[in-house]
């Protein structure tokens, strides 16, 4: 394992920002530390960088314990949330800083900086100051500056937060491709699940100073391990008591749960339904046009189910009575989440929920 955290605890006065955190990241992986604000994700990143120090626990980078190693000697490149570019230095001097601190020869510095300028597509902008650059250019400059001394590990703190929405998508694809191309092990912090899903090979979900789950974006989406992950990743609606639903009456794990839009299918009057005995009566509460589909909010037994409905099917309207089949849902039992299938369906029939 390339980066390893073992039983990390960190307090800020009374507030515990990290509770017994352990995880590891393989070499060459682009990992996202995902969580809401106050989840401790930035604190974790800053502890790996050496900008904060854990109260207990160990941090290993490339097999070496780095707890006592100064931030400047950990071989880490860091991209700050607001970039922290040196405002009184031009682009060249910013990128060259890490190399000049290491007393590299001027010729070597020059060639490395031009190489990086080419990589980030900013040739010819050496003489500009940060204030004369756009948000995207600043971010690329910060990225190049962090990479200049050839770090072993790249850490990025909310790298897209300060960029306006239009450029953000473009830039995160650029950054992902760049990091993949360079093959550098990287960890970035984000509160945006779409960003994490789109960019990361692996997501570590943090909440309340704890790690909830670690896995590929698909793993987290398909089989969330905790109620928090089930509701934080992807679209879902909470259910107060899932056991009143047909096909789930004999379940024993907890009462509350969550359901994703693709777990529910709507039937209108004229269709023949295979699983007549497990279909629920539903009221259409709201309909919103979303381009390729309709977003339909159903009310079943007093609980709200957001679902998708094809524009090709019989039109429905708010206030209509329809019927709905709940194929699957997540049941919450304490701090665990379980994927449950509707017991009235034979498994072969409802196998692939993503093809409904």
């Amino acid at each position, binding site marked *: 394992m390339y980066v390893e955290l073992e039983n990390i605890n960190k307090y800020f006065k009374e507030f515990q920002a990290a509770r017994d955190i352990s995880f590891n990241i393989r070499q060459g992986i682009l990992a996202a530390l995902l969580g809401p604000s106050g989840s401790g994700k930035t604190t974790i990143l800053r502890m790996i960088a050496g*900008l904060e120090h854990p109260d207990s626990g160990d941090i290993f980078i490339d097999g070496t314990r780095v707890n006592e190693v100064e931030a400047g000697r950990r071989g880490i490149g860091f991209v*700050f949330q607001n970039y922290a*570019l*040196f*405002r*009184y230095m031009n682009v060249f001097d910013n990128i060259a*800083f*890490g190399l000049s601190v290491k007393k590299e020869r001027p010729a070597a510095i020059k060639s490395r900086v031009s190489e990086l300028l080419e990589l980030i597509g900013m040739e010819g902008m050496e003489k500009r100051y940060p204030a004369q650059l756009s948000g995207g250019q600043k971010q690329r400059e910060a990225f190049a500056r962090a990479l200049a*001394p050839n770090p072993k590990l790249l850490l990025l703190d909310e790298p897209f937060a300060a960029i306006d929405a239009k450029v953000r998508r473009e830039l995160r694809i650029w950054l992902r491709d760049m990091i993949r191309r360079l093959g550098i092990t990287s960890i970035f912090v984000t509160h945006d699940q779409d960003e994490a899903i789109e960019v990361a090979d692996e997501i570590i979900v943090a909440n309340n100073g704890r790690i909830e789950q670690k896995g590929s974006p698909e793993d987290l989406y398909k089989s969330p391990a905790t109620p928090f992950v089930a509701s934080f990743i992807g679209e879902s609606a909470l259910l107060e008591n899932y056991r009143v639903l047909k096909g789930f009456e004999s379940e024993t794990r907890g009462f509350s749960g969550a359901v994703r839009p693709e777990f529910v299918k709507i039937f209108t009057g004229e269709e023949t339904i295979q699983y007549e005995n497990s279909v629920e009566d539903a009221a259409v509460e709201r309909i919103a046009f979303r381009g390729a589909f309709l977003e339909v909010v159903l009310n079943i037994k007093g609980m709200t189910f957001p679902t998708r409905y094809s524009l090709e099917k019989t039109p429905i309207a708010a206030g209509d009575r329809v019927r709905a089949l709940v194929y699957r849902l997540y049941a919450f039992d304490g701090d665990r989440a379980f994927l449950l299938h509707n017991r009235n369906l034979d498994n072969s029939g409802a196998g692939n929920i993503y093809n409904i």
Partner: protein
Amino acid sequence: MSLKGNIWIPRLLTGTSVIFVLLTLVLPLAVVMAEALGSGLDLYMRAVTDTYTAKALHLTLAATAAAVVLNTFFGLAAAWVVTRFSFRGKGVLSTVVDVPFAVSPVIAGLVFILTFGRLSPLHPFLEACGIKIVFAWPGIILATVFVTFPFVARELIPVLEARGTDEEQAAALMGAGFFTIFRRVTFPHIRWALLYSVILCAARAMGEFGAVSVVSGHLRGKTNTLPLHVEILYNEYRFADAFAVASILAVAAIVILAARNVVEYAAHKEEETNVR
């Protein structure tokens, strides 16, 4: 009626300010110059080039230089500590920095007499070492440094606070040491504020009267600074001489003011072109 619509309000305010400035600043300055030169250029030159005046000027410049050098150093250190570290008693420290502004200079002078003078328990020790502070030039420098202490720190603290620490953290993460970070990252942010505060500090140091007056002992040619010399001449009814010497201070003040404006303009211009 809107404030903008009334043409009399801006006129009234401008008029009041102009009259106030004329009465309190321009008129006295003009009187100093007029009185200084009133008895002829010969007398003026004689008063200005007088040995005691030269010695007083020398001491004033020395005290000013010492105050500027020491306070630049202390002020930088204090501002750095207050804005870059958190520790117990930090609030107390940033309040203590302001004490010289709050305490009357005369009291500051008295404090030095009590601390280092003949009544002090330190006195036998100082005497044994042959160090004379009160009624000697070290006392004058000490008093001047004390009175001008807050200028640099007070000017730098808000600047350092506003700039934040992220650029310094970024530099540290790339392996830069303290002095590299200070020289290449922090200093460019504060250089104009530092120069500005040094100028203010110099202006204040030159004109310092109260604290210096108490610790000086008024030994002509030895512990007399220019402001004290003016007072002595005045008390001896040598009005022309007194005004002539005062005019040196007035000219110095004008030069400093001009320097201040140049610095302000340069800083503003740099901000506009290169930095946000």
